[in-house]
């Protein structure tokens, strides 16, 4: 056992000491932060008009005359009065549109906007908004109500909070946030299974091509070496995650102070973290990361042992990664919309797909018995794959120059010690 610890130590330290590891620790949270920022900017930007629009108002009702507010990108013009001649006039000019308001403007779809290209959504939204406001004030005046008074009375801001009824008492279910958390977890697990599984595989290939394998397994059993490597790399993964979570939390906190305005993306993100059962999700995340990693890393190690170079791994990688890829694609497209569908339930039970599928479901709090079964199956599965992989591994690492196939690997499995 002592020797496994030594191997774990070496595998861990050689990776953690690498410059690339240290750089990654800082780069990833920064990337996340920058990406969040960019998304926020883009989202805000798409609400606004990017080019100047001139709107010629032809108001037959008399309610809207000179009442539109100009802003940076919209100018309202009241010079034209005849729709037909205005249309002729503006036939070929871009960025100019005609807003025609008939006398009976309250009738549905009676207000028309003409332009060379279809009016953009932000433009028509803005006009609609302003018209509603103007018409509303007009109505108020008609009924002798002071619009200023009303707006001071009206200053309330109600947003809907969806509550689920359950045995444990009512709980807030923020559906959008749950989706985001679930998908984020699934993507993270999916990527990390590949990244760290791949590291295990490359480590095995390295030992084999360096021919150090024979020296090492004259000192320890192949199984000890494989186990030490898998655990060592797994700990590297955990270290990286912990560092990312801590740094990201710190970064959002710092960023949160400077952009802490309601409605901003970062503020929402902070709120999400406060409202979800963070500990529970994190616990599940760590469990599914570890068990999924152990399951796949063993298979990756077996593949690494069977080949002489990384280029030969393709044919073996495909069947291993297929279920994962399949679940991943389903997760980000379908599963999060229907987290309790039979497909989602089944995928979250099958150990090869569970780490991704279950993480999508976790924020929606699936039944406890399902989580329990899924977790038990995960543990059984990684013990099983580790056993199978170790039997292939012990033969594979000493095989050189032989082109391995699945048939060959099956034979290795049945070899005696």
């Amino acid at each position, binding site marked *: 056992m002592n*020797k496994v610890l*030594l*191997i774990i130590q*070496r595998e861990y330290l*050689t990776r953690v000491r690498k410059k690339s590891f240290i750089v990654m620790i800082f780069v990833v949270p920064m990337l996340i932060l920058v990406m969040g920022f960019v998304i926020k900017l883009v989202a805000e930007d798409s609400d606004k008009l990017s080019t100047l629009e001139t709107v010629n108002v032809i108001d037959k009702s008399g309610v809207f005359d000179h009442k539109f507010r100009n802003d940076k990108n919209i100018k309202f013009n009241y010079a034209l009065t005849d729709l037909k001649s205005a249309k002729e006039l503006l036939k070929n000019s871009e960025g100019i549109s005609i807003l025609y308001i008939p006398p009976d403007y309250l009738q549905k779809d009676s207000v028309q906007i003409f332009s060379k290209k279809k009016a953009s959504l932000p433009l028509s939204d803005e006009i609609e908004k302003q018209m509603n406001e103007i018409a509303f004030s007009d109505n108020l005046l008609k009924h002798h109500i002071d619009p200023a008074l009303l707006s001071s009375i009206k200053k309330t801001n109600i947003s809907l909070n969806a509550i689920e009824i359950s045995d444990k008492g009512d709980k807030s279910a923020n559906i959008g946030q749950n989706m985001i958390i679930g998908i984020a977890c699934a993507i993270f697990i999916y990527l990390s299974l590949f990244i760290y599984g791949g590291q295990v595989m490359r480590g095995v290939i*390295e*030992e084999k091509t*360096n*021919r*150090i*394998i*024979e*020296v*090492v*397994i*004259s*000192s*320890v*059993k192949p199984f000890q070496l494989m186990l030490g490597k898998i655990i060592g790399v797994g700990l590297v993964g955990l270290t990286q995650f912990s560092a990312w979570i801590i740094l990201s939390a710190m970064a959002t906190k710092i960023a949160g102070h400077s952009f802490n305005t309601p409605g901003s993306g970062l503020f929402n993100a902070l709120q999400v973290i406060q409202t979800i059962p963070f500990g529970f999700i994190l616990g599940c995340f760590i469990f599914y990361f570890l068990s999924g990693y152990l399951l796949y890393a063993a298979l990756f190690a077996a593949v690494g042992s069977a080949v002489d170079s990384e280029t030969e791994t393709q044919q073996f990688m495909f069947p291993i990664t297929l279920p994962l890829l399949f679940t991943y694609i389903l997760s980000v497209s379908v599963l999060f919309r229907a987290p309790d569908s039979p497909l989602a339930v089944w995928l979250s039970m099958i150990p090869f797909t569970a780490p991704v599928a279950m993480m999508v479901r976790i924020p929606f709090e699936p039944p406890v018995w399902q989580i329990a079964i899924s977790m038990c199956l995960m543990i059984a599965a990684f013990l099983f794959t580790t056993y199978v992989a170790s039997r292939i591994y012990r033969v594979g690492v*000493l095989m*050189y120059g032989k082109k391995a196939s699945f048939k060959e690997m099956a*034979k290795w499995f049945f070899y*005696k*010690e």
Partner: protein
Amino acid sequence: MLSIRNIVKQYAGHRALSDVSLEVESGQIFGLLGPNGAGKTSLIRIVNQITAPDSGEVYFKGEKLNQSHIERIGYLPEERGLYKKMEIGEQMIYLARLKGLSRAEAQKRLKFWFEKLGMETWWKKKIEELSKGMQQKAQFVATVLHEPDLIILDEPFSGFDPVNAELIKDEILELNKKGATILFSTHRMESVEELCDAIALINKSHKILDGKVKHIRNSYRNETYFVEYAGEQIIFDGNQPFEVVNEAIGDDSYTIKIKLAEGHNSNDILHYLIPRVRVNMLQEVIPSMHEIFIEKVNLNTTGHE
């Protein structure tokens, strides 16, 4: 020291070892000889517990081979290799610790060896920065650092330049003098006669010869002698007590290779020669291990044993 009994190892397509038994005595330098693919490496891997035999047993110091013996054995595989990106000092210590040494002890011994082999400045270097010969030297150190009782070397001289090969040879002899038993496989027959106390010859998974080098060579004597004489050239008429294999005429002497006829001994040669010529030299031809190796392997291969 090491007793290998009736080892059989079968791989999918072929048999690597069939019923191989041999004894390595404590303090011996034992040579494991055989052509490529004979099963030497398979046997060495079994002794190192890298693989297990299908049947048969290995005893180490009288005990059945088990995991606890790993720390008493040092192994230099034929295919050398170390972690390329790891610093050499750190790597040596790691390998020694896998063999059960403490970090402090490993460090102390490593310092000794580095000084001894002129490698002091290498400590912080990565393996990939070293030349192939330097890597081999480092690997040799890794093999013997934990002061094993049994040192197993698979083709130890391949890959070394003559200077370093000599250096390693001297180190092997010194370790042997200090009490280590050495088992090594090789093709280089000259090193066998120079180094080995005993050998085993393996061909096509069978052991076809083993024993002390001296005994083997003696048992392969076939009453052949070299004679050098001066004087008048003898015209052999068939009445001499030997058969002439070949003759060579030197500047002022003649050399003949002769095979003694049955029922005679070397004195009879002298009796025949002394009245006729002046004998400069009479020397028995003892076959070299190389000749025995070739002969045995060819016999074995053609199936006329």
